[in-house]
C-alpha cells in the first residue's frame, strides 16, 4: 500500500497500483493513472471503455472480464488489446479507479 497524490488529491494505491477507494476517482486522475500505464493521452475510444468499466463496477460491484467486455462494451476483444496492450480489463480498471476485476474461481 502506498500513499500518493493524483490530480491534487491524496490517495492510497494497493501493491498492484489500483486505487483503494474508487469513490475518490476523478476524470483528471484517470489521465495521470493512464500515464503510469504508458498511455500519454486517452483517446475517445479508450474513454468509452473506461466509462463502461466504471458503470459496470458501480452497478455490479466488480469490473467485467475481457471476455465480458468484448461482448458488452461495443469494442471487440482485438480492439481492446490495441487500446490497452498490457491487458484491457486490468489496465482499464486501473485507469478507471476500480478494483482489479475478480476473474473467477
Amino acid at each position: 500500500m502506498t500513499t500518493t497524490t493524483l490530480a491534487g488529491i491524496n490517495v492510497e494505491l494497493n501493491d498492484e497500483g489500483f486505487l483503494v477507494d474508487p469513490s475518490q476517482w476523478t476524470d483528471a486522475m484517470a489521465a495521470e493513472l493512464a500515464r503510469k500505464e504508458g498511455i500519454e493521452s486517452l483517446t475517445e475510444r479508450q474513454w468509452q471503455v473506461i466509462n463502461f468499466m466504471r458503470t459496470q463496477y458501480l452497478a455490479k460491484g466488480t469490473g467485467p472480464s475481457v471476455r465480458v467486455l468484448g461482448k458488452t462494451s461495443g469494442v471487440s476483444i482485438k480492439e481492446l488489446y490495441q487500446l490497452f496492450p498490457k491487458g484491457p480489463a486490468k489496465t482499464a480498471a486501473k485507469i478507471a479507479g476500480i478494483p482489479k476485476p475478480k476473474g473467477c474461481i
Partner: protein
Amino acid sequence: MHRIVILGGGTGGTLAANRLRKVYRPDQADITVVDQDDRHLYQPGLLFIPFGVGSTQDITRPRGEQLHPGVNYVTTAIEKVELESNTVRLVDGTNLAYDVLVVATGAVLSTNETEGLTDAGWMEKVFTFYTPKGATALARALGEFTGGRIVVNIVDMPIKCPVAPLEFCFLADSYFKKRGIRDRVELTYVTPLDGAFTKPVCSEQLGGMLADRGITLVTEFNTGSVDGAKGRLIAYDEREIPFDLAVIIPVHSGAPYVFNSEGLGDELGFIPVDEHTLQSKASPNVFALGDAAALPASKAGSVAHFEGEVLVDNIQHFLDERNLDASFDGHVNCFIESGSSKALLIDFNYETEPLTGHFPGPVGLPLMKESHLNHLGKLAFQWMYWHSLLPGRDLPFVTSHMPRAGKHFVAPVKKEHSR
C-alpha cells in the same frame, strides 16, 4: 400442490430433486426434472480417460435412474423460460408451469468463441478432455505420442473444475515418466491468470509443484486464436506458443436456452443469484445451483452438493412465505490428483482461502499436502457420488459449511478481492 420444476438432471438438479422429494410428500409437491438427454456423466472421471484409465461407459449412467421414483422426468430440450408467466417452454411444444424453478443446467463449452480452435487439427493435435469424445480421442493421441511439445491451455475463466487442467499436467508428467519418455516431452501450462491457481497461497504451492516436475508455467496469456495447422497458440497481445499437441480448455457459457430467456442469465448465460441464499436476482421464485449459477465459487460438484442443502431449505422457506435464512458460505472441497497415485485435498469458502491442516478435523485427511490417502479418497468418491450424493444423503464427515477445526489459521481471515 406446489409445482417445482428443475432444469437439468446433472449433479445439482438430481440431488436437489431427490432432497426435495424427501421433504415434500407426493400430495404436497409435484417435482419435475427436465433434461435434453438421458446420459448422466460423472464428470470428474473424464480427467483419467486420456491416460487410459476408464472409459466413458464406466462413468455414464441413465439420468432417470438416479432420480427418486416419485420425481417426474422429462427428456426434452428446453426452448426458454418465461419469468413473467412462470412457464418453461420445451422444444416439443410442451409448456411447464411452475411455482418454483430451479436452474441446474450447468455450463457448456463454447468452442466457437476461440478463433481456429475447431479448424485444422481439431481432435488430431488439438483436443479437450472436457467432453467424452475429446477425452477418448486424446487417450489415443497420448498413446501414440513419442515426444515433443504439449501445451495445456485454459482460454478464459470461469471453467468447470478449475484444478482439472493442473491435475492433467501432473498426471501427464507421471504418465510419460512411466512410459520412460518424460525427457522427450516438454510440458507447458498456459493460463490467463497471474499464477497457477486463483487463490494466492494455493497458487504458490501448485506453481511450485509444476516447477518441481519441470512443467513450464506461462501466465497472463489470453488466447486469441489456435492455429492447429502450424501448431501454435496466439495470444491477443501477439505472444505465440508452439506445440505438437494442444490440450485446450475452451471458454464456458450457460446452457443455450438461457440466452433466449429474457432476464434469466448474465452476458455469459450464467444465473445471477444471491451468493448466500441462491435465489435469483431476477425473480424470487427462481433458484440456481451448480455450474449454472454465477457465483464467486468454483464450478465443481462439491459446490453443487453443498449448495443443495441450502437450496432445499430456502425453497421450503419461500413456499411457506418465510424469510430465506439458510446461508451458503461458498464451501468448496476438491481432491487434486498430483500423479504417482497421490493427491492433495483443498477445502475453502468465500472468506477463507485453502489452508494447510487436516479435514474435516484435526484427525483426518491432510490438506494441501500430497498423500496416497487423498488419492484413495478421490477414487472412493465415485462410489459415494452415485450412492450417497445424488440420492441426496448427507455424506459422512462432510458438512455443507466449511469446517474450521483442523485448519491452520495463521493470518487473520481476509477476503480476497482482487482475484
